[in-house]
């Protein structure tokens, strides 16, 4: 009798274990498929950038037959029609200055709206919300119209200006962060004798490092990926950003397109990984209590 019960329970245990293992295998299969789907187009792009032939049509099937660095070399040397280095330089300038100005403006706005209780506050928040609901196109079309009429904003500083000035409307994420700083720290500082300006510089900013990094990184990477506004605004070839320039390459220059894309995608992806890791760490260690 006893042996039979023992067998029963051990079979049950075995069944349970088998189920677990099968389940795990299934999950891993799904994961592998999913990741393959995400990886594949990127892989294709990377490999294509190393393709020996330039055009899309020369490659039967997906992947290039012959590989070379040609596309990359051409990117930087054949600058007559497609001045990649110039595009890079332009975009870099825009990114750096946008990063600086946008971060300043957004952080300032978010902090003020989070901390100060002033009469116009709710009104401002509602207006910001309403403004952000207009298709961003409306503003861009106006600028385009002004451009065609006056030829004014045809340079990269216009882009910096527009990016920076429209950035504060997206203050909500940063404000959410500032909302989590306990009021008692500010009160202690007030009693200690700090003016609000001093509180901002000595207490708020140091505590806001994670969100400042987030804002800086996102505003740095944005000009690299934005296409519409630069296309509208920057007419002369020498003023183009990378995004605009790459879109001019047709199917004949596919390898070049891939190469140019990969070249800027790599640093952006690296920055994003860095950002995700920093955000994760920043959120957990920023335990502000005490």
């Amino acid at each position, binding site marked *: 009798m006893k042996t039979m019960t023992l067998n029963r329970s051990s079979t049950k245990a075995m069944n349970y274990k088998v189920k677990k293992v099968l389940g795990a295998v299934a*999950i891993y299969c*799904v*994961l592998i498929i*999913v*990741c393959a789907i*995400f990886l594949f*187009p*990127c892989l*294709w*792009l990377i490999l294509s950038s190393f393709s020996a032939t330039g055009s*899309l*049509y020369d490659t*039967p*099937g*997906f992947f290039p037959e012959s590989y070379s660095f040609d596309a990359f070399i051409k990117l930087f040397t054949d600058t007559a029609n497609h001045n990649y280095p110039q595009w890079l330089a332009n975009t870099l300038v825009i990114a750096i200055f946008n990063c600086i100005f946008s971060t300043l*403006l957004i952080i*300032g*706005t978010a902090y*003020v709206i989070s*901390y*100060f209780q002033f009469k116009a506050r709710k009104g401002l928040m509602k207006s910001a*919300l*309403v*403004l952000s*609901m*207009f*298709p961003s*196109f*409306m*503003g861009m*079309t*106006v600028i*385009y*119209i*002004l451009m065609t*009429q006056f030829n004014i904003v045809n340079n990269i500083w216009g882009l910096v200006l527009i990016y920076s*000035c*429209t950035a*504060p409307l997206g203050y909500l994420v940063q404000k959410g962060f500032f*909302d989590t700083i306990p*009021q008692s720290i500010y009160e202690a500082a007030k009693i200690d004798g700090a*003016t*609000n*300006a001093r509180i*901002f510089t000595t207490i708020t900013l140091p505590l806001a490092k994670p969100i400042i990094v987030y804002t800086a990184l996102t505003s740095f990477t944005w000009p690299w*990926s934005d296409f519409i506004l630069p296309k*509208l605004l920057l007419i002369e070839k020498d003023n183009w950003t990378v*995004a605009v320039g*790459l*879109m001019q390459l047709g199917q004949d220059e*596919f390898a070049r397109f891939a190469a140019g*894309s990969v070249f*800027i*995608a790599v640093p*952006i*992806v690296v*920055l*994003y*990984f860095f950002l*995700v890791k920093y955000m994760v760490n920043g959120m957990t260690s920023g335990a502000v209590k005490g």
Partner: protein
Amino acid sequence: MKRAFRRLGIKISDSWTNFINFFKVANTNTKASMSLMGLGQFMYRQVGRGIMYLGVEILGILFFAIYGFQWIVGLFTLGTVQGDPWTGKQGDNSVIFMLLGLMSVFLLILFIALYISNVRDANNTSKLVLKGEKPKKFKDDLKDLLDKKFYKTVLFLPLLGTIIFSVIPIVFMILVAFTNYGEPYIPPVLVDWVGLENFVQIFSLGEIGPTFFKILGWNILWAVATTLLNYVLGLLLAILLNKKIVKGKFFWRLFPILAYAIPGFITLTAFKFMFAQGGPINNMITSNGGSPIPFLTEDGTWWARFIGLMINAWLTIPSVMLLATGILSNINSDLYEAAKIDGAGSARQFKDITLPFVIFATTPTLITSFIGNFNNFGVFYFLRSTVTTEGYFVSNDTDLLINWLYRLSIDNQFYSIGAAISLIIFIITSSISLIIYIKSPAYKKEDTFR
């Protein structure tokens, strides 16, 4: 409902009473400020403030006399003299008139606001003096800007930037929607106000109307489908990756992040090439004996829509996954343990604990992503901007309202129609958002967070 109106009525009559009372009770200094900005302040020995307000008045009057007034007039007429390139006659540029007029109106509003502030300031000082206190000195005002009124200092630049680069352009475009600005009415040809004619065109039969409704229908279908698809799949992926069995979570998460990090125009163009008529996928199909599938070409209406849906999922699921992962990590693990002891299997735990919590936490973002997808310009611009379909006025069967907008305005210069459509998009999306946002607990409970 009646009560709301009554309350509004009482509020209005109370404000009126207080307004009348203000004039009766205002002392001489306040009345002085009412007649000449800054005068009351001078009478209180507030030199700094007085100079500032007086300066505003002088500048304001000068501006309006020299430019402002005629610009505002120009706003209404939009120019009367048409220029003639043949004779070289310089005419009125309607667009410039509209812009300058608009700026003048804003400056007028600003001037009025400063005037009211001037009167209020004098009145407040008079109340202070009554209670036996001294009028505030300019030095203290400056110090306040770094302290009690620090918010004014900080918000000044963002506010200025937003007004110039967001508010004015939007108002300008709203105005354009009521003109006939567009082919052929482009300066130097004079542009005129046409009232609601553009909207009539959009909603009636004719060239534009039918296209509008077709695109609107597809736009709504698209927004719902893609939002739901991305949300559900992203959520599932996050849950999958969150399971205890999965080792090396960070490694698995890298791949979606890769897809998310690469700039959109790159991946979209890559997909466009991938699915092109002569592209690699079709090549593989033909080399295996099939006929090429019209993924993105003219005839492939539903293929194109399907591909668009899939590609957008590829692009957006990673961000949904990241968000859901963050939220899942906030769920109290005690809940799961209690459920396990109660006898709940993993399916039940998912249904009763995970799902409700995540849905509750992500509902606000669901609405924002719905709106974002409604206006998702990039997907169909990069994939199919060269295609036009029969029966669509300068558009195709996968275009969203916003793509159509772009084509109308930028490619074909039908600015006024484009502006009108912008307005319609705005009304749709804003109504949805405002209603849901104001009813959401996040908005109501904002202050209890502290």
